[in-house]
């Protein structure tokens, strides 16, 4: 099996556009403020952690495929371009084969809700412009079009843990030689329908939005940010495997690890939701960090942020190894481990 390295990171989050502002928010360690979101039929609004407008309008907004694209696509493309860096021009020039994997759970809910409201009002006049944007793979398609990338491109749907399956899939494509580099993006957007659904299950966990992206290459340690060390099996929540058991089984696939390492978990600082994950990692003596408590609960985007943060702290030589633990909303427990590439020495 080939070794796989992380060569780029990108993020759009409630902290703003870019990895740097997300890093700042994590270093401040203060939950980002929530914003009200009107919910039809209710006097009181819902609360979400939405993405602030970009400091300046990104140039890619002017691309013909992106002018009317849904918000989740804007997040996807922004995070992807940040992670790609100069590799973007190589892809656009046809010199590098780029695999694209976009992972979503709720997907393009805003256009889906608006389109279906039009259908309920009068299906004969529902907008043909909006319907194609409701399809799960619209963000991946727009990104591929922007980059003129004709290589393989998948959209995976599932709960928070699916983003880690996306990384494993990318590693497989790289190992099989299907692509030269591969982007794995997790993205979500806010809508009152999602926030309303969240409130019914997790009233204290405001829904967030944004995207996170990592760029992977195989056998290319030079200039790498981090190395992918492992992705655990997926441990689904079934009649025969409770959340607690799934979390415990996921934890068991990690190596013991030294104390100096970091655990980047998916806990939300809410004991009733965090029980399975806290039990699984009760023996962890190292440092712990939870990005969801700061940035919000944004399903696959939130897992992507965990991975971006994990690789970013390795890039900064704060930790030599980071374990990422994800107990998803309703499907699975999964984990990943990133380590410092062997060529880099401590500074």
């Amino acid at each position: 099996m080939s070794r796989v390295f992380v060569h780029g990171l990108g993020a759009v989050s409630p902290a703003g556009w870019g990895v740097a502002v997300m890093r700042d928010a994590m270093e401040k360690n203060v939950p980002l403020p929530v914003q009200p979101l009107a919910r039809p039929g209710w006097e009181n609004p819902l609360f979400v952690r939405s993405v602030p407008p970009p400091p300046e309008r990104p140039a890619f907004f002017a691309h013909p495929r992106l002018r009317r694209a849904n918000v989740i696509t804007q997040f996807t493309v922004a995070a992807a371009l940040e992670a790609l860096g100069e590799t973007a021009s190589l892809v656009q020039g046809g010199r590098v084969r780029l695999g694209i994997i976009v992972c979503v759970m709720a997907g393009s809910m805003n256009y889906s809700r608006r389109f279906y409201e039009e259908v309920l009002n009068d299906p004969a006049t529902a907008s043909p412009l909006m319907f194609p944007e409701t399809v799960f793979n619209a963000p991946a398609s727009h990104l591929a079009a922007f980059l003129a990338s004709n290589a393989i491109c998948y959209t995976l749907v599932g709960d928070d843990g699916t983003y880690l399956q996306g990384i494993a899939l990318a590693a497989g494509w790289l190992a099989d030689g299907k692509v030269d580099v591969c982007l794995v993006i997790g993205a979500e957007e806010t809508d009152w329908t999602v926030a309303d659904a969240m409130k019914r299950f997790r009233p204290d966990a405001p829904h967030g939005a944004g995207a996170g992206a990592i760029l992977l290459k195989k056998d290319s340690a030079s200039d790498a940010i981090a190395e992918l060390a492992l992705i655990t099996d997926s441990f689904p929540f079934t009649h025969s495997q409770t959340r607690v058991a799934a979390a415990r089984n996921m934890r068991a696939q990690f190596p013991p690890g030294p104390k100096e390492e970091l655990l980047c978990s998916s806990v939300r600082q809410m004991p009733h939701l965090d029980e399975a994950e806290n039990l699984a990692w009760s023996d962890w003596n190292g440092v712990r960090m939870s990005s969801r408590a700061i940035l919000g609960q944004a399903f696959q985007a939130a897992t992507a942020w965990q991975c971006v943060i994990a690789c970013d702290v390795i890039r900064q030589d704060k930790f030599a190894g980071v374990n990422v633990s994800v107990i998803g909303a309703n499907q699975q427990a999964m984990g990943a481990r990133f380590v410092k590439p062997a060529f880099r020495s401590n500074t």
Partner: protein
Amino acid sequence: MLFPAPNLSGSANPNRVVITGVGIFTALGSGWQINAAGFRTGRTAFRPVTLFDVSRQRSKIAAEADMPAGFPATKLSPNGVRRLGRASRMLLHAAHEAWSQAGWNADENLPVVLGTTSGEMSLGEEYLQHAVRFPRAKKQQPTRIVHYQIQQQALDLFNAFGFDGPITLVSNACASGANAIGHAFEILRSGRAEKVMTGGYDALCQLTFAGFDSLQALSPAPCRPFDAARDGLTLGEGAAVLTLETLAHATKRNVAILGEITGYGAATDTHHLTQPHPEGNAALAAMTAACACAGVSPEQIDYLNAHGTATLQNDATETAALNRWAGRHAGNLRVSSTKSGIGHLLGGAGAVEAVVCLMALRGQWLPPQISLEKIDPACRFQIVNKPVDAKVEMALSNSFGFGGANASLIFRRWS
């Protein structure tokens, strides 16, 4: 461990991948036998839509399936069965047939790879309607939220048959089912697993129906793929599930083998979100990649199950791609689109059409499209328009989707 991935075969050479179980559910009926009889004769299953109001739509027909009164015996509780939506039921009918045929056991670490575009979208529609009309009502809303989500349908499979493993849900629009089977094939070929359950499914729902109608992509009459006078697609619904194993694993179990998957190719068309490139570059790339994977050339393909939606643009693009791909052998290539009988199953299409290819390989016949009146003169290949027996050793199935997802699969007869 998903990474580093194991090589369970212990060999550096790719594994051969075989099919040991198949389940199918379409508007023709539930199960291999009734569907094979229907596809062999070119039976059509279109009728007025009854599931939702289409009085204000341009098209008023679809290949709507009748749900059987009974439900297969599974490990689901009666309440669990009662909560299943239409898409889940179709998926479980197909999965039960495939599972029974494969003779797999419960409690195994078994990967599942499924393709769908909408999952249980009708429950999402109900959720929104109730949330708007009765904003304070709570009854049944949590159930709708849970069962609407695509991952729940995969979890239902686990709970129904008592197994678990990694779930991969591919949503590449109308290529989802083919991409799912292709991904399952690659998992086995590379030795990352010894067996995988895979397939695709989608049920009719108002949002999707109205969406295609808004694009004026639906025909008011039953669709006529590759017809010179074609005027749009007709939607359908259904599911197909395949149990795949490495040849070594199937041989060790001494189980009947139904066919072999030998090739998979995928490519992305960046031309437009809903319109394919007129020259069919990505379709050509997908077919070429599938042939390279299988180690075959176009003239070795005895039957091609086309994506063939019957929209002006899809069929023109696919025709251009097929003409280029088959080259001077195009005149010998036999093609049909079985969407002429069961409609376009979206995320289920690639999986159901994979099963149709298997039926042709096992039965040594070609599925006709009876509705064809005047073939589009751009087609340099043959369209199968009447039932015919034929020697079929290899079949290729095409699936293309919104967003430029293109996938091709190649199947070989097992003898």
